[in-house]
């Protein structure tokens, strides 16, 4: 069964450093998402991406964040200058067409900012 994969599973970085979180969505999917979950809190929407552009972003997704689909298979989330409060689990999701537009989630990347 096809699945969404994410690398790395855990990333530790120093405050102020740039990080890139990688996702490989399900191959025939067209809609891509990033969500984050701060420990003990609910999952929050960051950004959605379709047809090679951002379709919506939340207030969390400020200028420090960017997304890219560089090669037609990977979907990346870049944080330019990490802050302590960026420490969280980051989930990638992808969805195909159809009424439900069901989103399939990856296993997540745990980002720890020191």
């Amino acid at each position, binding site marked *: 069964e096809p699945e969404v994969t994410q690398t790395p599973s855990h990333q530790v970085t120093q405050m102020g450093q740039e990080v890139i979180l990688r996702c490989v969505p399900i191959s025939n999917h067209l809609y891509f*998402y990033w*969500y984050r979950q701060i420990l003990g809190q609910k999952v*929050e929407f960051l950004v*959605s991406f379709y047809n090679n552009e951002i379709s919506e972003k939340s207030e969390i997704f400020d200028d420090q964040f960017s997304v890219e689909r560089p090669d037609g298979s990977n979907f990346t989330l870049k944080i330019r200058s990490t802050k302590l409060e960026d420490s969280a689990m980051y989930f990638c999701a992808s969805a195909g067409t159809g009424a439900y537009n069901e*989103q399939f989630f990856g*296993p997540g990347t745990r980002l720890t900012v020191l």
Partner: protein
Amino acid sequence: AQTVTQSQPEMSVQEAETVTLSCTYDTSESDYYLFWYKQPPSRQMILVIRQEAYKQQNATENRFSVNFQKAAKSFSLKISDSQLGDAAMYFCAYRSPGRGSNYKLTFGKGTLLTVNP
């Protein structure tokens, strides 16, 4: 903006018993989708069940069923014959019908379900 509320931070159930997890939501839309996701300790979220708001019939997937009360804006999940593998965090999620290409999910805070042997 839509909000999703899960009023039970934690629930526990005996193996083989039935448990119901509550979810309410607030929206001004008439058509939308509702989902329950399961997040086991491995952390990957898995879709458990889904419901379209315009369908009055409650969705069922094996041991999982929902009680969808549109007027009350309630969407509870019933797990029958609970198994140890059902232990997880359960998230209720709302999705608008979508404008253009966006179908973002709005999640509740989750309910941690413990299954006791």
